């Protein structure tokens, strides 16, 4: 595991267990997500990888009964400390969801949404920022002539890239992606994967995926999770360079999973 000193944009998880009520969904996680690295979390359904990801920006707080033991920190901010400003945290930790969830407003307004929440920039500056975000998410060419059209008119793949543009427009430190391609066709998937590879230059990227080719193609580090057969809690089986995990896994469960024998 990574031993270098954490930067302000490193997410660290120490001895964390995640609960729904009394059920421990994820147990004893120790992980470190470094900047400019794409970390993929893989594992079979129900192993708690989405729960883990959704706990990083505290979006899972919305689920009744959810609580966290252990520490999760961003730089030196304790994410779950009582005094933590959740709104500020979520601005620093952006998220892209499983299914594209554009707001029912124009393409422009979708991207501008996060930018205009606090101290909105001038019109011109806003337009420039929106353009930057759309360019960065490889959508600008497709939508530059219809920025005022409703976002719902875009295709599924375009909508997902719009959601990525919305997430990066506010320039977060960390970008979380929860199976971002699961609702997309292969061509859109490829575009989003290329995008992820570019985004890692400026972000700490964590991506949960079901798709092993995707993990192999798009990530640098891979975390393999599985459900404990006894207490049904998800836990980390193995962490390593993506290449190593896919070509020379140490753990038999990882090997079975990446070779497609279960999950």
């Amino acid at each position, binding site marked *: 595991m990574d031993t270098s000193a954490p930067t*302000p*944009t490193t997410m660290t998880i120490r001895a964390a267990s*995640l609960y*729904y009520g009394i059920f421990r*969904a*994820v147990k004893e996680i120790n992980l470190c997500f470094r900047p400019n690295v794409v970390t993929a979390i893989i594992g079979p359904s*129900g*192993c*708690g*990888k*989405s*729960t883990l990801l*959704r706990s990083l920006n505290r979006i*899972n707080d919305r*689920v*009744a009964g959810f609580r966290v033991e252990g520490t999760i920190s961003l730089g030196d901010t304790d994410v779950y400390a009582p005094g933590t*400003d959740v*709104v*500020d945290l979520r601005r620093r930790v952006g998220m892209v969801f499983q299914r594209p969830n554009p707001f029912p407003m124009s393409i422009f307004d979708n991207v501008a949404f996060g930018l205009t*929440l*606090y*101290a909105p*920039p001038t019109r011109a500056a806003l337009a420039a920022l929106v353009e*930057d975000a759309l360019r*960065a998410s490889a959508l600008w060419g497709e939508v530059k002539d219809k920025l005022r059209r409703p976002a719902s008119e875009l295709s599924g793949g375009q909508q997902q890239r719009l959601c990525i543009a919305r997430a*990066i427009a506010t*320039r977060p*430190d960390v970008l979380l992606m929860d199976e971002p391609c699961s609702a997309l066709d292969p061509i859109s998937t490829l575009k989003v994967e290329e995008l992820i590879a570019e*985004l890692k*230059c*400026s972000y700490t990227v964590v991506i949960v995926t079901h798709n092993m080719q995707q993990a192999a193609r798009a990530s640098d580090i891979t975390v393999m999770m599985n459900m404990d057969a006894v207490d049904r809690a*998800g836990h980390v089986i193995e962490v390593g360079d993506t290449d190593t995990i896919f070509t020379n896994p140490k753990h038999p469960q990882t090997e079975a999973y990446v070779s497609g024998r279960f999950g």
Partner: protein
Amino acid sequence: MYNEPREARVTRDVVWERRIIAARRRAALVDRAMTGLLALAALGLALVLSAIIFIILRAGLPALSWSFLTSASSITDPGGGIGPQIFVSIYVLVLSLLIATPVGVGAAIYLAEYARPGPATNAIRFSTEALASVPSVVFGVFGAIIFLTTMSLGFSVLSGSLTLALLNLPLMVRIAEDAIRSVPVAYREASLALGASRWETIRKAVLPSALPGIITALVLTGGRILGETAPLILTTGTTISPNARYSLNPLQTGETLAVHIWVLKIVGVPGLKDAQLVADGSAAVLLLIVLLINLAMAFFTTRLTRRLRGVGRAPRAGGSKKG
């Protein structure tokens, strides 16, 4: 620009960042203020309701006694009761439900089980929807034209019951139709697979499981009938003939409890010293009935549904998140 490290961006945009921090503090304040304001609105509404119930009961309960509920009303002497008004209320309630139920449930069965898309079905659907939004006083006027004048029933319990039956048809159709539609397809299929005809399937499989919903429709309608005032003023009248106080003759004029309150407070009964007390007592009775109906509804519908359907609620899709 997206390739710059964050630190560089921060130092460059330090002024902007400072503005953002101030704006964020403001937004947090607005968020808290609005949360408080919304909670206050809800709390206010709950308090007003409690106040309404408290005030009505405090004013009315002292008037209540067995003799108040059973003895005849008086237009001259204090100490009169509301017996005849309660009788008329129940009479109108029963009569209008007797008229409305077969029509309403029948129409609901037709819409849920037989209707095919087409102009006739559209017309029926549109009319239930339209009828549901018509103000009750318009039904009163219609009743006054049709039943009082055209059919020359005059101000009578029958005119009022017919009017209220009409008034409550849409609500009844809607709830009953929902109930019938929510019967699982599997029930129908099982029955049809056993060789039952469509009508037999409806009678033996669909209607029994839709029964809780249909009962809900009846109870809700009943509650509305007891509280209805305006259409009754125009159709049953505002008096009870002193020599036919408990008469079952549907052609008698009548005055329900709700109308009685209105008469005491608005039309006025000159010379009756305890009019206010009688009105308060009547209001308390009316309120208690309404509260009772609602409590019973809340209790029975969940009970009945569970027992007759034998299933819990279907899990809500999209409600909780998987891990």
